[in-house]
Every structure is written in C-alpha cells, then in structure tokens.
C-alpha cells in the first residue's frame, strides 16, 4: 500500500476514534394510581424554618407533577458499561438545606467528588450521614457554619442523610464509580448523556416505591427514551 493511502486510512481511523458520537438516554418516571395523601410538615418547633415557606410544606418522599410525573427517582446504569476508571469531576455536588428541606432530596456523587452541604437558614442543622461502607459523619451546622464539604472514597449505593435537629429533614445520596446517573426533577424527566454505544441495563430507584429496571441498546449517537412507571407497592 502506498504511503499516502496508509496515511489516509490512519487519519480516518483517528477521526472515527475521536469523533465517535455519544449516545443519550432520556426518560420519564411516572406514578400510576391514586395520588397518595401526604401529611403537611409541621415546622412550628423551629420558627426560622417556617419563615422560608409561604405555603404548606410536604415531605419530599413522593413528589408528583400534575400528570403523575414522579420526581426524586434516581436512575443509573447497572450493567453494560465498559470496564474503565472514570475520573471524578471537578464540579461539586451541592446539597442545600434551605428552608429546613434538603435540595436535592436524592443526589449522586462520584467517588472522590466533593459534596458541599449548605446551611443558609440561620438556624442549627445537624447533618448526620449514615453510610455503611464510607465513613459516617455527624456534624452540627450552627448558623455560622454555612457550608461543609465532604469527599466519599468508596462506592456505596444510597445511604441516608438526616438532620438530627429537624426530624422531617432527610435526603439520600449515592456514591458512584461512573458518571452515568441522574435524578428526576419534579417533571419526572431524566437524561443520561455521553454514553458509548452498547447494551445497558438501567435501574430506577425510589426510596419508598422500590426499583424498576429496563434494558436498552444504543448505537453511536443514538438517543433513546426509556420510561419508568411506579405504583404504590402492594402490601
């Protein structure tokens, strides 16, 4: 083969290797069935908490849109990812406690990624993380301690974060070894970007409603939609 042809083929190979189009999964989580009645949170014990809210506040356990869109569903890839080490992003995962409610209520971070917990409330919070694999921490956050940062060094799927001062405050956090995860917003939607082509198994997790799984095959640059449907577990 002529050297010029060889060079051409090499250029094509490099182009293909560097310009492989990433695939995307989008989706919607919905709740089927009768909308559960949620009890209003009584924040009277700490008047500072209630001043942050103009109306009634409900638990973040089940967040529903008008048409049953379901928030706080954590979606992740549980099979099919290439065996490789994914670097932790430089960006921070921020968990706010504004108005004595955790925002987001369900979060994910990668091993080694900084998790920043904020307290803008001007009152005492006490963040108590209860992991089983990572190191537990139990930190008081008086009003002057407006943020703390933590880094988790082991993979651990879902452990609770509680405020020991305000019993209604709870959140969940997953420590992942890959960046392919997302939490549905109040509109029930999620997006997993930049996936390589392949066959994947997805899992959607909810703290009360359990888990759903789905399989999906993605070609390069393909975008597919995967929806999940949750309902109240039968007793």
């Amino acid at each position, binding site marked *: 083969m002529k050297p010029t042809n060889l060079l051409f083929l090499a250029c094509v190979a490099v182009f293909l290797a560097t310009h492989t189009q990433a695939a995307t999964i989008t989706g919607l989580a919905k709740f089927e069935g009768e909308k559960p009645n949620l009890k209003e949170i009584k924040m009277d014990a700490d008047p500072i908490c209630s001043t942050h809210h103009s109306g009634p506040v409900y638990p973040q356990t089940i967040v529903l849109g008008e048409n049953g869109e379901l928030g706080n569903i954590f979606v992740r890839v549980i099979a099919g990812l290439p065996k490789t080490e994914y670097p932790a992003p430089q960006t921070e995962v921020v968990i706010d406690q504004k108005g004595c409610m955790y925002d987001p209520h369900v979060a994910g971070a990668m091993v080694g990624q900084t998790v920043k917990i904020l307290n803008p409330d001007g*009152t005492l919070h006490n963040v*108590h993380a*209860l992991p089983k694999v990572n190191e537990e921490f139990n930190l008081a956050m*008086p009003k*002057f301690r407006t943020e703390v940062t933590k880094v988790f060094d082991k993979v651990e799927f879902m452990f609770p974060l509680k405020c020991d001062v305000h*019993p209604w405050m*709870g959140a969940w956090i997953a420590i992942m070894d890959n960046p392919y995860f997302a939490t549905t917003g109040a509109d029930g939607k999620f997006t997993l970007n930049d996936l390589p082509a392949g066959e994947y198994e997805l899992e959607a997790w909810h703290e009360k409603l359990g888990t759903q799984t789905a399989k999906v095959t993605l070609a390069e640059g393909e975008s597919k939609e995967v929806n999940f449907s949750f309902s109240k577990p039968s007793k």
Partner: protein
Amino acid sequence: MSQQGHAHHDPHELPFWKKYVFSTDHKVIGIQYGFTGLFFLFFGFCLVMLMRWQLAYPEQPVPVIGKFFNDSSMPGGVMLPEFYNSLGAMHGTIMVFLGIVPVAFGAFVNFVLPLQVGAPDMAFPRLNMASYWLLVVGGIVMLVSFFVPGGAANSGWTSYAPLAVVATTGQTYWLIGMAFLIQSSLLGAINVIATTFQLRAKGLTFMRLPFFVWSQLVTAFLLVLAFPPLLAAAVLQLMDRIAHTSFFMPSGLLVSGQPLEISGGGSVLLWQHLFWFLAHPEVYVLILPAMGIVAEVIANNIRKPLWGYKAMVYSVVFIGFMSFIVWAHHMYLTGMGTAISAFFQATTMIISIPSVIILTALFISLWGGSIRFNTQMLFALAFLPMFGIGGLTGLPLGLSSPDIYLHDTYYVIGHFHYVVAPGTIFALFAGVYHWFPKATGRKMNEFLGQLHFWPSLVFMNGIFFPMMIQGLAGVQRRLYDGGAQYAHAKDYLDLNVMMSWSAWLLAIAQIPFIINFIGSLFAGKKVDSDNPWEATTLEWQTPTPPGHGNFLTQPIVYRGPYEYSVPGASKDFTSQNEPPAGASQPAGTSQGVH
C-alpha cells in the same frame, strides 16, 4: 529548731532518676502526684475557659488563641459544637480523674498519711510508684485523644450508652485511659488501707488517728470497692465499640431513624447503674479528703480540739457505707420505677445527715477558738459555707419530683461545682498552704495567699451561683450556645456573660498562687522550726523536709490528735508523741521538736 539536713546525709544517695522520677519514696510520689494533678487541674481549667467564651459569646471567634486551632475544631476561631462537646466531656473527666483525685487523694494521702500515722513509708512502695505511673499513662492517653480523628471523647464525662458506643474514636481512647486511671487509683487505695492498718505508730489507736487519716481511709475503701465495677463497665463498652458486642446496646436501636446493625439485647441502663455505682462514691472520693484537710487546718488554727471528733469519725464511716446505696438518684428520669426511686430517695436523704454532722462539728469547733486567719484557714473557713451550699442544693436533686424538672439543667452544674470547686478545690488550696512548709522547708507568702483567696472566693460564687438561677429557669446543660436557641432561656443569657467574666477573673486570681507557689519553692521564708504551725499531729515531728524513712526515731503516740490549749499545759499544743507529764521517755523514741 529545724532538723534540716537529715535528708542530705543519707549514705544511700540514689541517682537522680531513681530519686525524683521512678521514686518509691512516698513523699516524692506525693509531690509527683501533686505536680501532675495541678497540671491537669490547670489544663482542665483552660478547657472550660474556652467553653465559657462559647457560652458567653456563641459563634464569635475566640480572641487571640482561636486562630491556633484547626478547622475541625474552630474554623476561623469560631468553636464548633462537636469541639464544645469534647471540651465538656474532657473537662469533667480531667478535673475529676486527673486533677482532683490525684491531688486530693494521690498527693495529700501520699505525702501526709504515712507521716501522720508515724510510718517510714507506704506499705507497698513499688506498688505506689506503679500507681503514679499508671496515672501518667492514663493522662497521656487522654491528652493524645484530642488529636485523633473526630477529636477527644464527646459523649459527656458520664459516657452514657448508646451515645458513647456509636461515638467517634476519641471515646475508645477515653475508655483505655480510664482503665489506666482506675488501676492507678486501685493500687493507691490498697496501699492506703494497708499502711493505715499495718504501719501505725505504737500507741496510735484508731480513735487517735487524725481526722484526715480517717477521711482518706474511708476514701480508699470507696475507691477499692467502687472502681472495679466501672473498670468492668469500661471494658464492656470497649468491647461494644471494637468487638461489636452489645452489652449496652438494645435490640431495635435506631440512630437517626436508621436501624443499627448490632446483635442487640443489651441494656443501656446497665451502663448507668455501673457508672453511677462508681461515680456517686466518687463524689465522696472528691469531698472526703477535702473534709479531712479542712479538719486539720481548722483544728490547727482555732487552737482548740475539734468539737465532736468521734461523731465526725462515725459520720465519715457512715458516709462511706451509705455512698454505695444512693447511686440511682442520678437515674430518676430513666423511669426505673417508683419503688426503687423511693428507696434511693430515702437513702439520699439519710446520707445528708452525716455530712451535716461533720460540717456542724467544724462550725461549732470555731466557737470560742483563738482563730488564726492565715491563708490556709481562710480557704478552710470558706470551704464550710461553700460545701454547705453545694450540699443543701443537692437535696432537691435527691428527691424524684424536683429532680425530674431540674435534671440536666444548669442547677445540677451549679450544685456539684459548689461541692467540688469552692468546696474541694478550696480545701486543696488550704492543704497546699498548710503542708507546703513541711514539704519544702519554706512558707508560702501570706500577702499573695490572701490576694489569691479573696478574689477566688468572689469569682467562684460569680460563676456558680447564677447557674442555680439558670437551672431553675430550665436552661439545660451541654448546650454549646448556652441556650441561645431556646426561647425559654433567652431572659437568662446575660448571666452567661457574667459567669464567663467571673471565670476569666478567677483564672487571673490564680496568678498570685502560681507566683507564690513557684517563688516560695526557691525564695520563700525558711521555717525556723520543724513545726512552724505549732501543730499536734505526727507529720510535724519529722525533720523538714523529712528524709528517707521520715522519723529520726520511731514515734510513740500517747494522746489524741487535737490536744490544743490543754488546761495546765505549758504551751497551747501538745504533740501526739509527747509523753504524759511524769512519764519517762522510752529509749529510742522521738520527742517532739518545738
């Protein structure tokens, strides 16, 4: 005349490290205990100085020294609640187990008791040395714990389960440190008992023992009998923490709403029972030596016998016995049942009676006395009303109904600090001023002594009396911001500022003592007699300072401990070893040196 120099002619001169470091001489060990205990008292006091800033000015940076702390304790100089918790737990632990016990029991009992009973040393000198060095190891473990991840123990000095079992690493160090401290006290206590029973001078019957010896003997029995359960409890809690046993961990325990992965089946109340089975007698371990010191100082400075000596002795023995059956008055809030509460209320009321007898006897002793108002006497006199306030404010806590309201409030803090701070610590100061000349051959300065006493008296009350007011208003203890988060405490927050300034001024008031203590070691006025206070007990019949073996000749005791102003006597004090008029001095016995 003084018999100084006796110590310098010992033909068996020991190398420095054996004479002053790994010494088996009870006096050196006593002084070692004294310096170590004073260091830890100072350290524990420094911890509370920081806490008082946080209570008076919560969430404001600690001036000057705040910047020397790292971000895990004081980011930007502002104290974190976790660090406050550590300071609180370690202040209590250090003051009780590393400060007051080593000084009140370790130092004074070691230095004074063998001399007062006419013994050449403690019964087991090597055990004595081991006792001191176990204390040092325990102290080091406690100090090191400040530097482990999560800081020192932060579950209160009581280390209640299950909180302490799930606490940070510092708690493990606390338990290990306590094991050493307990062993230290046990060895010391055994030594005191053996020395008092076996090494008393000829003629020194039990009813001729100075009240100080009686109080320390009872204290030793309390330590021997009460500490082993705490040692067992500490080991069990250690197992719960590191070996995942569940001695104190109940089944179905939730922490922050999450079930713990433990075998369960344990009892949290078991820890409280074991802890308070030691810790209530421990209160008497703190106070009985103080009563003993005060009795000696008062007897010497009123120049007349103590009123009701026998009643005092019977009372101190009765306190010792009763102190083992009052522990659960710390636990009314646990809901242990009305029948058991009734029992412990009754015993608690009963144990107050002998304390009142001792205090009353000391008060009555003052009547008609020719009182010398020197520094040690001022501290001893101040002890009486201060301990009185501490004791009387304890009565409502001994009754279940008021205790349910007052439990865990500042009232409790005020109550027990009146007992141990202007109570015991004042007595310790009295003891230091009183026996300093015997240990060093020099007197402490009287002006600096008074400069130490009067501000200390004022500021002690400035700290602890407002606590009673706060406590009655329901302000809880262990709040890192002094109650600023609570509406019911808001009207009482100003008292925090007053108390904190009193605490800092109290610290300043200790400067004359430090100057006096160190200065007098080197430049204090030399005593011109082995018995500069003209006292009656045997420790004043030794050379000054006493050499190895203490007495030049073995003393024989002919009389009780407080024969002051005996009618017909040529002087106003008669030493215990002074033979009755007309009796011949047996060969080979010492004669009082006046």
